[in-house]
C-alpha cells in the first residue's frame, strides 16, 4: 500500500472544495480504530467532514467504510479513538442518542419497516414526539397537534421523493429503489445535521438513482451535511464536493473528486484488491 504523506492527510479538504469557501467541520474523528480478531477493519487517523458539504467515502470492498459508519454512529464499539460532532464529543454514546444529537445514518441494505405503511415509516422517524412517552400516549389531545404536523411533514417529504402515491402501502411491498428513497426520507424526518448514507444508490435503477442524487443535492441546499459511502465513481463525481478514499481500514487519499480519482494510491488500492481477489 502506498501511503500518502502525513502532510496531505492532515490538510483539510475544506480549503480546496465547495462553492461557498471554508466551513467549519461538523464531524472530526481522530485515531478511530476497530479490529475484528487480528483484522484492523478500521484504523482512521483523521477524518473531518466540513459542514454543508457532500462528502463521498469510497474504497474497495473491505476497506472499512461501513465499519467506520457503525463506529461513528454508535452501532459498534470503537477499540480506540475520539470524535466530535458539532464540537461535542460523542464517542461512547448509544446509537439512539447520537441520532438525536443530529447524526442520522442509513444502512447498506435498506431496512424498510416492512409491516408498517410507507407513511408510518416516515412518521415514526420524526424526532421529539411527545406521544412516544407512555403516559402521554394515552391522552391523545396532548399529542394530536404535533401528530398532524408530523404527518404533514411526512407527506410533504413523500411528495418530494415521489413516494406519495404509495403512502398507504406496506413498506415491505416497495421495490429496492423505492426502499432506498424511503430510507432517505425517514432519515430526513429525523432532522439530521449530518446525514450518513451507506451506499444510497446500490440496487437502484438509473432513473431512480437520478432522483435520489438530485434529492441528496437538494438537502445540501437546505443546510444538511452529507457523508455517503459509494462504489459508483460516476455518482461520486456527480454530487460530491469532496472525496475520502479508504483502503484496508485507512484513509489513503482525500480531496476533490478529480484529485482523488487521479491519485495513484487510489488507483493502486482498487487494482491491488482486484489482484488480491484473483489470487
Amino acid at each position, binding site marked *: 500500500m502506498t501511503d500518502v504523506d502525513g502532510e496531505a492527510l492532515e490538510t483539510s479538504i475544506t480549503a480546496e472544495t465547495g462553492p461557498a469557501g471554508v466551513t467549519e467541520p461538523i464531524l472530526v474523528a481522530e485515531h478511530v480504530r476497530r479490529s475484528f480478531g487480528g483484522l484492523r477493519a478500521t484504523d482512521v487517523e483523521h477524518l473531518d467532514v466540513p459542514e454543508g458539504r457532500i462528502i463521498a467515502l469510497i474504497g474497495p470492498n473491505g476497506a472499512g467504510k461501513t465499519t467506520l459508519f457503525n463506529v461513528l454512529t454508535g452501532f459498534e464499539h470503537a477499540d480506540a479513538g475520539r470524535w466530535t460532532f458539532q464540537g461535542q464529543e460523542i464517542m461512547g454514546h448509544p446509537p439512539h442518542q447520537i441520532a438525536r444529537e443530529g447524526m442520522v445514518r442509513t444502512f447498506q441494505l435498506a431496512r*424498510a419497516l*416492512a*409491516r408498517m405503511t410507507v407513511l*408510518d415509516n416516515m412518521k*415514526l422517524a420524526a424526532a421529539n414526539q411527545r406521544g*412516544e412517552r407512555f403516559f402521554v400516549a394515552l391522552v391523545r389531545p396532548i399529542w394530536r397537534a404535533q401528530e398532524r404536523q408530523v404527518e404533514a411533514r411526512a407527506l410533504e417529504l413523500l411528495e418530494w421523493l415521489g413516494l406519495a402515491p404509495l403512502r398507504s402501502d406496506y413498506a415491505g411491498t416497495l421495490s429496492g429503489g423505492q426502499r432506498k428513497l424511503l430510507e432517505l426520507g425517514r432519515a430526513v*424526518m429525523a432532522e439530521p445535521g449530518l446525514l450518513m448514507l451507506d451506499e444510497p444508490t446500490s440496487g437502484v435503477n438509473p432513473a431512480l438513482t437520478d432522483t435520489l442524487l438530485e434529492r441528496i443535492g437538494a438537502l445540501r441546499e437546505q443546510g444538511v451535511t452529507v457523508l455517503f459511502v459509494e462504489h459508483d465513481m460516476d455518482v461520486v463525481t456527480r454530487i460530491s464536493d469532496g472525496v475520502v478514499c479508504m483502503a484496508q481500514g485507512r484513509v489513503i487519499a482525500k480531496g476533490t473528486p478529480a484529485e482523488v480519482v487521479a491519485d495513484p494510491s487510489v488507483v493502486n488500492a482498487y487494482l491491488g484488491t482486484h489482484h488480491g481477489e484473483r489470487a
Partner: protein
Amino acid sequence: MDFSQALVDAVRAAVGVPAAAYALAAVGLNLQFGYTGLLNFGQVGFLLVGAYGTAITADHGLPLPLAFLVGVAAAVVLGLILGLPTLRLRAEYLAIVTISAAEILRLVVRSRPLEGFTGGAFGIREFADAFYNWNPIPSGEYGVGNVTFSDRTLWVMLVGWTLVALTSGLIFLLVRSPWGRVLRGIRDDENATRSFGKNVFAFKLQSLVLGGSIGALAGILLAVDAQFTNADYWQSIFTFFAFTVIIIGGVGRVIGPVVGSMLFWFLLQGADTLLQQALADSFFGSKLGPTEAGPIRFALVGLVLMLLMIFRPQGLFGSRAETLIEEP
C-alpha cells in the same frame, strides 16, 4: 351423539372464566409479541407471580385489594428482572431466559423450604373469600337457555371480562399512539428504529413489563376463581396456548386475543364433550376409552390450527397482505 349438549358446553366455555383469563394473558402477550416482536416464552411465569403474590399476601391476612396490587407489582418486578439483562441482546435470549424463569419459578414455589410461605406442592387455598363477599349479584342461576351460570361464577366472569375490556381498551389507545408506532418499528427492525433516535431498550422494557402485568391479572383471575393456586397449575404449556390464542385471533390486532381465546375454548370444550360422548358410546370401538378424550381434543385443536395456518395464516382478524410480506 348429543350435539346440542356439546354446543351448550362449548358456549359456556367460550364465555367462561378460563376464556377470560386466557384472553387477558394473550392481550399481554400480543403487546409483547404481536406489536413489539418480543419472544416471551414465559408468560405463564407472570401469571404465577400474579397468583402467588396475591395468594400469599391475602393468606397473611392483609386486605385483598392490597393483595391484588402485590400480585401486579410482582409481575412488574419480574419483567424488570428478566428484561434489564436480556433486552439489550438479540431476541432469542429473551426467549431462553423467560421460558427458564417460568420453570424456575414453578419449581421454587413448590420447593419444601418455601412450604410455609407458598404451601409447597399443596399450594394455597381459600384466600379470596372477601372477593366473593363483594359479589353484588343476588344468588341464583342466570343465563340464556341451557347456558347458565351461578351468581358466583357470573361475578368472576363479570370481573374477568371487564378486565379484558379495560386492558384491550388500554392497548387500543397505546398502539394507535406514537408510542405504539415505535413498538411496531422495533418489531420490524430494531436497528432502523434505533437509527431515528428511539431508545429501543426502554420501549422494549415498557412493553415487556406492561404485557407481563396484564398476564399477572390473568393469573390472579384464575387463582381467585379456583380459590386455589399450586405450582402444577402454571405449566409452560399455558404460554403456548396463549400463543395459539393470538395466532387464531390474529397477531397484532387488538381484538385478536379476545376472539382467539373464545374460539379456542369453544373448540376445545365442544370437541371434549363430543369425544366424551363418542368414547362412552364406544363409537371408535374398544381401543379408545373416555380417558383418551383429553389428548385427542388437543390433537383436534392442533389440526384446526394447522388448517388455519394453511388457509388463513393471518388468523381471524389479521391482515393477509401484512402476513404475506416476507421477513427481511
